[in-house]
């Protein structure tokens, strides 16, 4: 296959993958038809009488929200698929589009929440809380527990090992490939990995046994699978960074890992993540109520409750998790991730115009 065909195929594959990722972002997929945003006695996170979700007003709010969300996201994915230029700019625009899709879902959820508050009769906040006196985790299989631990350690261990290997082989690394910048990317990987690992640990030791499910064992199972999904997605992204950085050391002449190697791995990881996602949808029990008050949610999605010892709680719709922003530990996690990302961005910011220039030059020479 010629280089030009290979690059064209790579562009097409990447474009399709990125457009589908925009469409199926974590804030979007729970809103496929059939799902009602209920958890306990809440609707769009607002405590309402139990019959509200099935009333005409409730259905109307949900229909409007779903129509707006899917129109917005389809339009965004469509514009990206058709209009984004090939190459590095496409990847940069992809990150912008993902951020945009999150913002759209955030704003629309906020509008639906406001409409629910206005239209629904408010229901009393729960004051009864329950806990079991016997420990959880008896029914968890050893294989699942081992896999969960492995995917907790890998997001940090992988970039750390890569960093050590880079440092040990510093003199052998081709200077034209900027080893210092590669190391910066790895530092960013360590920060990102630390954040993911911390959230996975928080899901084990800092989450309530009655969240996501009605029994502690079922809750632990949900949390384990949620950790697995985070682990696999982050391991795929960080693994990609690490492979790209180490490839020139072991394949002289190569600038980065070839697409034929990384793309299938990313596809497998994506497939596994989707399988876990379906599993999570099955495991989630909407009867598991939110024991805390509505007012603990700031700016729609941010949980802030100083009197709650939990580090991590279910999101308002119940799917996935949100951190308790009143806990100092959570800000330490954010701090580590932000500092390492900033360090890397400062180091590689001036690399972007270079990358775009090189990318254009390669494409020009091929046409």
């Amino acid at each position, binding site marked *: 296959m010629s280089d030009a065909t290979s690059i064209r195929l790579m562009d097409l594959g990447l474009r399709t993958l990125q457009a589908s990722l925009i469409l199926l972002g974590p804030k979007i997929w729970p809103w496929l038809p059939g799902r009602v945003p209920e958890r306990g006695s809440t609707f769009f996170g607002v405590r309402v009488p139990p019959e509200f979700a099935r009333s005409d007003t409730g259905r109307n709010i949900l229909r409007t929200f779903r129509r707006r969300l899917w129109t917005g996201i389809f339009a965004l994915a469509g514009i990206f698929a058709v209009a984004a230029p090939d190459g590095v700019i496409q990847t940069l625009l992809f990150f912008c589009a993902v951020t945009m899709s999150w913002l759209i879902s955030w704003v629309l959820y906020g509008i639906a929440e406001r409409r629910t508050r206005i239209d629904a009769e408010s229901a009393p906040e729960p*004051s*009864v*809380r*329950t*806990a*079991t*006196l*016997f*420990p959880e985790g*008896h029914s968890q299989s050893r294989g699942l527990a081992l896999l969960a631990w492995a995917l907790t350690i890998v997001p940090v261990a992988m970039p750390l090992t890569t960093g050590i290997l880079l440092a040990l082989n510093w003199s052998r690394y081709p200077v034209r490939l900027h080893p210092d910048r590669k190391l910066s990317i790895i530092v960013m990987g360590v920060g990102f990995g630390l954040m993911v690992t911390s959230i996975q640990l928080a899901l084990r030791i*800092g*989450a*309530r*046994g*009655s969240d996501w499910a009605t029994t*502690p064992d079922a809750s632990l199972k949900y949390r384990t699978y949620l950790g697995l999904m985070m682990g696999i997605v982050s391991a795929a992204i960080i693994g990609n960074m690490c492979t790209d950085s180490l490839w020139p050391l072991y394949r002289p002449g190569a600038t980065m890992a070839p697409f034929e190697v990384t793309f299938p791995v990313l596809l497998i990881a994506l497939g596994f993540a989707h399988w876990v996602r379906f599993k999570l949808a099955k495991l989630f029990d909407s009867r598991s109520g939110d*024991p*805390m008050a509505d007012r603990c949610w700031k700016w729609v999605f941010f949980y802030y409750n100083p*009197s*709650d*010892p*939990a580090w991590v709680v279910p999101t308002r719709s119940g799917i996935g998790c949100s951190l308790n922003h009143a806990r100092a530990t959570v800000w330490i996690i954010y701090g580590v991730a932000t500092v390492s990302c900033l360090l890397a961005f400062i180091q590689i910011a001036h690399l972007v115009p270079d990358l775009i220039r090189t990318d254009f030059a390669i494409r020009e020479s091929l046409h």
Partner: protein
Amino acid sequence: MARSAQLKIDVSSDVPAYRQIADQVRALVVEGALEPGDSLPPVRKLALDLGIHFNTIAEAYRTLAREGLLDITHGHGARVAGISSKSPDPEEAENFRQRLRELVAMVRSRGLSTRRIVGELRAVVDGLEQ
């Protein structure tokens, strides 16, 4: 089959949370749902599950330890010690009678029928005898 014992607290109740916890654990020990030697969850874990401060749980555990129902050892957490078999203080029986009379008067004034009250008391006595 795994045993289960649940705690339920009402954060809007006039009764302090630590008292609610201590009362329920005491009842579980007396009814046999918790047996001597059973470990109770760590203070922080239970606080997390109930969404309250860990000092509240620690206070409940300390109250029960003072009564001799729990053994609290550093590094091993809290374990059920069982019910003391020593002869009770005569004042204790008098206190019990007084509190029971007050409780009966309170629920009667809130509309619970005499027959229902007798039924509930009999159920408690039956549970104790079993």
